[in-house]
């Protein structure tokens, strides 16, 4: 039988799954804005933010929610080869299999021939990995209004330039995702644990402990997941080595948080 620490640890495995999406006030508002934007006749929607702010989770949640009502295609890993990219889109969006090389002109002919009223939505994660040439082609494709794109970008200086130079005139909606505040982080942690029926673990997170975690992770969801995974692993280790008397289990101590941060590299010791 797994202890509560093992179950709690597994809650914070860094896996992008729409089922694990946690409804937070700010995130809900942004998500609703994104859903509304997709209904509008926009060419392109840009979702950007620092790594670990939940962009991938957003796209997954959006894909899960929209897939039942309209044509949505999610590409979590970028297809870097241009021909491969066109061939994949032609097959998924227009159910056209193409053998051999497919260039942009040939693909545009397919798009025009298969034009429908139900405009497909293509969700591209990690768009900063696409080449500038391919991004230019995606821009031209979105101009035809036959395909709607939602792309996510890491917010860096270089990616800002890409966004400005290639997409600024085409992007109708930009949504920025930010790190969680201390209160949001507490809700995030507790909701996540309670979703997995780890109520005892959820009660261990006092405001003081969450503030400490927030100070270390800066409210970044990915870092928080990583830290809390290690934290419960530590509790598990104390428990299995019969040293659990040395630690408090009614609340999370700063010492354990700091030890977890040291182990994960969030604190330079």
């Amino acid at each position: 039988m797994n202890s509560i620490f093992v179950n709690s640890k597994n809650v914070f495995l860094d896996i992008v799954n729409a089922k694990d999406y946690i409804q937070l006030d700010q995130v809900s508002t942004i998500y609703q804005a994104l859903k509304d934007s997709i209904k509008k006749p926009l060419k392109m929607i840009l979702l950007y933010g620092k790594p670990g702010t939940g962009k991938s989770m957003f796209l997954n949640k959006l894909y899960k929610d929209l897939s039942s009502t309209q044509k949505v295609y999610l590409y979590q890993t970028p297809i870097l080869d241009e021909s491969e990219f066109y061939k994949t889109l032609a097959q998924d969006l227009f159910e056209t299999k193409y053998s051999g090389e497919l260039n942009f002109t040939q693909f545009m002919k397919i798009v025009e021939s298969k034009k429908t009223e139900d405009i497909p939505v293509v969700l591209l994660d990690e768009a900063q990995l696409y080449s500038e040439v391919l991004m230019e082609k995606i821009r031209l494709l979105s101009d035809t209004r036959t395909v709607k794109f939602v792309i996510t970008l890491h917010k860096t200086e270089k990616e800002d330039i890409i966004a400005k130079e290639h997409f600024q005139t085409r992007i109708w909606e930009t949504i920025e995702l930010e790190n969680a505040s201390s209160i949001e982080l507490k809700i995030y942690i507790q909701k996540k644990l309670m979703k997995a029926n780890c109520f005892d673990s959820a009660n261990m997170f006092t405001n003081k402990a969450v503030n400490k975690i927030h100070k270390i992770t800066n409210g970044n969801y990915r870092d928080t997941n990583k830290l809390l995974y290690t934290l419960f692993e530590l509790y598990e280790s104390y428990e299995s080595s019969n040293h659990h008397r040395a630690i408090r289990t009614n609340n999370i101590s700063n010492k354990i948080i700091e030890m977890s941060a040291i182990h994960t590299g969030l604190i330079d010791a």
Partner: protein
Amino acid sequence: MLNITDLEKRWIRYKVKFYIPHLSIFISLSVILSIFFSFSNNTQEPNDIPHVVKEEPLLVASKESKIKVTPVPISKQETRVIHSTKKVKLSPSLDFMKKMQNSIQPYYNNEVSNKPYTVQKVQKVEAPKIEVVEKEKVLIPEYIPPVKVKKISIKRQNTQNDIYEIITRFKKNNNPALSLFVAKKYYELGDYQQAYNYALITNKINMEIESSWIIFTKSLVKLGKRDKAISTLKKYIKQSHSSGARILLDEIYAGRFK
């Protein structure tokens, strides 16, 4: 499974590293504060000193003002001063005599000044000098020391008339200091016979005054009675072992004193 012991060690190192800057800031702040307070204490001390200094002149002024404003204590103080000046006033007269001796016989300065007869003189000379002071009472009630007055009055006694005054005073109180003074004065003026007489009188009153015996023998030499002077000196040396008399005897023998 995580290595708890290793992680705990790393955590302790982290905490030490974390508190080092806090500790250093605290220590530096405490050092700065201690230096600041020590400086502030030092700067306060000089402020205290002027207060004290200021108070002292105030006290002095108050004393002075008391003397000036209240007449009764002044009169008491004056009488006290007069009594004290009676004693003090006599000592300058001796100084004067010493000066006189210096001008005549430079070798006997120390011996003459060390003589105890000054006390006797003080008692006997008091009476005439009190009169002088009493005259001055009205004129100088507070500040003028009577010493200056005496010196001035004694310096006037360089004339023959002054010698007579002292002779009359000697006749009244029979003070050997006065007769010795007269003898020295006569010797200085070249009246060796009178010098011999007054030295003889002095020796009769007090046989232990060395300078009197020296004036006596010197006068004898000057009067041409060298042998008598030598025999007198020898007798005196036998009794008193006076070095001054011995030096004079040697000089007479050597012919340096004629």
